[in-house]
């Protein structure tokens, strides 16, 4: 029976099937744990304690969540335009370069009120620039964006190694890092903010960028579902031909979508560079771009889903550290493996359970609705 044409009610489509996919991914995660001789239940306990239980755990969890929201949104917005942006990794990296360059240039002269918006814009702009080229090549030269963004990840990495080792390195230092930026560029961390109101909280890298990320979710939602541009984006993503008939120029949409996507990925630098490290370092973005793909797939490319998926990956990242501490067989690489499984089941095999769900639905559906 071909079930792909049978429509399901929304709650089955957007709640039940995604949950089944995640359960499948977690089932295999449990199997892996059994193979390496770890009790999965015990592991989950450590994971949750690491993510929430101890002082500062939650702060770190939300810090990671912030990064995943940015890269998840980046993947999602490109996805709605029918593009698969694997280049979040490189775009985030170059976004950091943008913020870093502007700070190295200006941080001694301007006040925080100017530096922070300029830094955010620079990060977004450089990220957008790094995505613009693959986007333009896709739109006007027909080069596939998947391949070009992969290549651009490697080019970004080579470029950053060169710049950090040879140009931006702090003189007289061995490790390839830039100098610290002035405090005027620092985005306030939550323990400082709460300290002003008299709360005493453990120092964590969790900073105000988190709320900026939530704001971005809101704007992305408005953009995709409540503006003409978003309509153009979704139309071109669904059917290029239909878009052309509707007077939409798909090429323009592709370039715009890639630029927005790159800008969002570039904002990772706001959280990491401006919020925590306060200097440019090697591989500060490592893994966030790829996790963004898992986040977006899991969150079904919707901002609300992305926030929830980001939180889950934040828990995994932070809890994974605690887990590694408690159980020596497990390192953070376990989290990478879980990511792989989630990309597989929530992405590539997203429709695997659908025929079963359809059959179950047809069986239990009240008779009166049968031909509705």
């Amino acid at each position: 029976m071909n079930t792909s044409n049978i429509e399901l009610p929304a709650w089955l489509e957007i709640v039940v099937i995604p949950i089944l996919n995640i359960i499948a991914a977690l089932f295999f995660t449990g199997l892996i744990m059994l193979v390496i001789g770890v009790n999965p239940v015990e592991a989950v306990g450590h994971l949750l304690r690491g993510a929430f239980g101890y002082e500062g755990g939650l702060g770190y969890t939300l810090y990671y969540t912030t990064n995943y929201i940015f890269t998840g949104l980046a993947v999602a917005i490109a996805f709605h335009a029918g593009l698969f942006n694997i280049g979040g990794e490189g775009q985030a990296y170059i976004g950091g370069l943008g913020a870093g360059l502007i700070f190295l240039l200006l941080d001694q002269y301007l006040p925080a009120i100017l530096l922070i918006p300029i830094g955010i814009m620079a990060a977004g702009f450089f990220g957008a620039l790094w995505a613009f080229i693959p986007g333009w090549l896709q739109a006007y030269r027909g080069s596939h964006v998947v391949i070009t963004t992969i290549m651009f990840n490697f080019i970004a990495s080579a470029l950053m190694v060169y710049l950090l080792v040879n140009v931006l390195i702090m003189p007289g230092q061995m490790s390839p890092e830039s100098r610290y930026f002035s405090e005027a560029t620092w985005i306030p961390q939550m323990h400082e903010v709460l300290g002003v109101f008299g709360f005493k909280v453990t120092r964590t890298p969790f900073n105000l960028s988190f709320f900026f990320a939530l704001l971005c979710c809101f704007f992305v939602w408005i953009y995709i579902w409540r503006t003409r541009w978003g309509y153009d984006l979704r139309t071109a993503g669904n059917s290029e031909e239909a878009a052309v008939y509707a007077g939409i120029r798909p090429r323009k949409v592709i370039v715009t979508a890639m630029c927005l996507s790159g800008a969002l990925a570039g904002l990772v630098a706001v959280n990491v560079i401006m919020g925590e490290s306060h200097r440019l370092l090697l591989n500060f973005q490592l893994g966030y771009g790829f996790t963004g793909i898992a986040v977006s797939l899991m969150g079904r490319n919707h901002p609300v889903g992305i926030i929830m998926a980001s939180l889950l990956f934040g828990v995994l990242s932070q809890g994974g550290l605690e887990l590694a501490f408690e159980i020596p067989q497990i390192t953070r690489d376990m989290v990478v493996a879980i990511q792989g499984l989630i990309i597989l089941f929530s992405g590539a095999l997203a429709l695997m359970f659908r025929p079963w769900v359809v059959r179950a639905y047809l069986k239990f559906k009240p008779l009166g609705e049968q031909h509705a």
Partner: protein
Amino acid sequence: MPDWLLAIFNVLDDALLPTMDATLRVSTPLILCAMAGLFSERSGIVDISLEGKMLAAAFAAGSVAAVSGSPVLSLLAAIMVSVSLAMVHGFASITHRGDQVVSGLAINVLASGLTVVLGIAWFRQGGQTPSLDSSARFMPIDLPFVEAAQSIPFFGRLYSEVLSGHNLLVYVGFAAVWLTWWVVYRTRFGLRLRAVGENPLAVDTAGLSVGKLRFSALVICGLLCGIAGTYLAIAQNAAFVKDMTAGQGYIALAALIFGKWRPLAALLACLMFGFLDAIAIRLQGVNVDFSLSLFGNVWPIKGEVPVQLIQSLPYVLTVVLLAGFIGRAIAPAAIGVPFSKER
């Protein structure tokens, strides 16, 4: 022989031969993976998971070699693991018509995490497998008449120092190119393979199973990636190391595209990318200091060679090629599109 010719040969001997030797060594995994990708992509399945399959295979080879001490057994294990991953890719993208790029990415991410998790659990060396004795590895073999050829300038040394003295898998890599060419262009299977990547509907109409053909292509793809991974872990190196593929699967994919999905052109692209890599390794930390006179100006060129520039050249060149600025790379027509019988 005139003196000047001997002088040229001497320069070539000292500068070029070691680089060419290194080129062959670093190109081998690229060649094997590019051929693997060729089978998959010619059948219409995008394969960005060359990297993950090679990594998982390298881990399997390193682990089995550490336990059993047998290179042949390790090779078989590596192939088995790599083919299984290819089957996962097939299950997702052929059986369930999932997104091929997403599926490939999943395999890459999964392999990069799982190899380390299992490595730490089994060997407790931080994700590495134990170092191997030479008996557990594929060791260099000398081709015949190496001694005799040594005395002939350049060509003799080309034979004895560049072509000879590699391990078996290097030669397997080159044989794979010829074999790939033969299978793809000279056999019935090859014809069908190409057809299914260009127009699966026609193949289906002719009464052949699109899925079966694509699955067979993926089996071959997995097999070749398995050999590539084995090469990395137990031939070129003496153990599996965390993330040891380091993007070579992607470079192989770039070479495949650069070679316009043809075996011989892809081989040349692999050799070129390998050569760039070998040069980059040789120039690491080398300082240059000379001046270049151009258009009446003298440009001083001084400082460390930007090795990263050379290392990123394969990627830059591939982007330029894809952009259609140097020739045009046209992918198989049906690539990336899941086949569905019902229309």
